[in-house]
């Protein structure tokens, strides 16, 4: 009985006392964090299962059912719970299939851009001197261009399509990793255990891989998780400008861009994909934040 009068948070606390989720030691995601983790998992699941979950083919147009509103409104049909678009395609199916592109693009971007950035950052930070000067100036140059501009130029140079979008996002996203890792390495390499290893004659590669990289790993992971959210936004912005994902692939940004012309007569075409983007980015950012707190309770990151 009394359960009903409690707030969601309190109820969560009571429940979590009874059922303990086996989080790694010290990791306390809390109510919001758990929700975010759950949502991220659902998104990744939707990305993997993709079209199998969608009730309709995302590109199948039905000229007899154009711009049906969501089911709960008058004229809506439960057959199309979130309505249809200007070509009579099922919005729910398109949202689900859009998850796939969003997740693939975002996760692949943060992994590949991470690897490139980390490698260059390690080289610059550890070797110093000329290598550092050259890499740092290139990083600065890449960071000095608003990344959306650079992405625009790359896309008009390379053409659209999922492969090229990935390439562009990688090109525009590696620089922050390089900068972060470089500064981490510069401080780590002065620490005793590295100096000792150097004196003991351990090879450079070994020092970098065995001693330095593990110490920078936490910050890299946090940046990578936060980067997933950033990449989702970047991809949707590019698609919105007409320079991103192109049909028959489906992207949330593309849905928004297409729906824009109908904004005064069919709001769901712009509102629903937006909610999908916000929820996804919010969840990944929240998980990134929780990881940051877990790795670094004092908040130095």
């Amino acid at each position, binding site marked *: 009985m009394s359960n009903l009068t409690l707030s969601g948070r309190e109820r969560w606390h009571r429940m979590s006392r009874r059922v303990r989720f086996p989080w790694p030691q010290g990791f306390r995601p809390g109510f919001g964090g758990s929700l975010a983790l759950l949502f991220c998992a659902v998104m990744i699941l939707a990305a993997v299962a993709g079209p199998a979950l969608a009730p309709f083919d995302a590109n199948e147009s039905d000229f007899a059912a154009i711009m049906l509103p969501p089911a709960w409104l008058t004229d809506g049909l439960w057959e199309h719970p979130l309505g249809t678009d200007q070509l009579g395609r099922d919005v729910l199916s398109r949202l689900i299939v859009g998850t796939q592109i969003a997740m693939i693009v975002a996760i692949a971007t943060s992994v590949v851009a991470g690897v490139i950035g980390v490698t260059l950052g390690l080289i610059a930070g550890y070797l110093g001197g000329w290598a550092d000067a050259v890499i740092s*100036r*290139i990083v*600065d*140059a*890449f960071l*000095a*261009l*608003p*990344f*959306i*501009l*650079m992405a*625009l*130029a*790359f896309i*008009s*140079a*390379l053409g659209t399509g999922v492969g090229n979008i990935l390439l562009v996002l990688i090109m525009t996203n590696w620089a922050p990793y390089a900068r972060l890792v470089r500064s981490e390495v510069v401080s780590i390499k002065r620490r005793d255990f590295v100096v000792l290893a150097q004196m003991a004659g351990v090879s450079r590669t070994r020092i970098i891989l065995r001693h330095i990289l593990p110490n920078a790993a936490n910050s890299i992971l946090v940046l990578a998780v936060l980067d997933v*959210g950033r990449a989702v*936004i970047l991809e*949707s*912005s590019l698609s*919105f*400008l007409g320079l991103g994902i192109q049909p028959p692939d489906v992207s949330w*940004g593309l849905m*928004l861009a297409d729906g*824009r012309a109908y*904004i*005064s007569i069919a*709001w769901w075409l*712009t*509102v629903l994909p*937006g909610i999908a*983007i*916000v929820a996804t*980015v*919010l969840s990944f*950012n*929240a998980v990134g934040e929780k990881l940051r707190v877990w790795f670094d309770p004092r*908040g130095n990151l």
Partner: protein
Amino acid sequence: MLLFMLKRLGQTLLTLLVLTFIIFTLARMTGDPTPLVMPSEATDEDRQFFREQYGLDRNLAAQYVIFLNNAAHGDFGVSFRFRTPAFDIVREAVGPTLSLAGSAMLLAILIGVPLGCAAAVRRGGRLDQFTSLFASLGQATPTFWVGLMLIVLLAIDFPIFPSSGYGTLAHYALPTLTLGFYASSSIARLTRANMVETLKSDFVYMERVLGLSGWSIVLKHALRNASLPIVTYLGLQFGLLLGGAVVTERVFAWPGIGQTIVDAILYRDYPVAQAAILTTAILFLTVNLAVDLIVMALDPRMRDA
């Protein structure tokens, strides 16, 4: 100090050089402007003449040297599309962009700083929770979507402001809100973090012991101490706003530098694209350099960092 400044300036110039190379290469990679400039009735000789006229028939290295040399003298060439000096077109677009970024910045400070302070003082309270939600939402929402939703809400459903365009003060409302939302969320978060740190520090504790009232500590002492990183951040934010303006300008048909760049790229108008991107980057680097120097001047400890 002087040595440091010189070194910093040198680095900035080097960065700029790398940038010109990236920009030049990117512009050429977008493709040949000839089909866009010449009518389909034109003969091959006419097309060839156009290429010669603008030096597009030379090899890329020669073109780059010419571009660099001319740019160093402030000459960015003539727009393929409008046949007027490229820099004139850019100059006209800088004003609207800067005024939009400026007004968004102002809004962001007016919302972000008080919100962050209040959240830091009442840590864990309702307002703090609201602030963290606000900050997360601001970071997670694409600017173009905020813009679209504002248009639906404040221009179509409740027609208070014009939906897009440029000209009167009312036209500033929606784009400023859009950009300001994004910027204020990160400023609120940063202010809160810095205030929390400062409020924990010894001197604030001392002042409390000395019996100063809570709000006077917050406003007079803690905020001043927390302001240094905030100022640094504002510089960075201004640059980000310049970039974020690209999408916002598109949504609201704002005749700024972002629109100019997008148009120039779509029309393969290399001179305008190069001039506009370089101008943006120079603005960004200058703001960063200025912020660095101000911070150095204010805080000697950071000189050897």
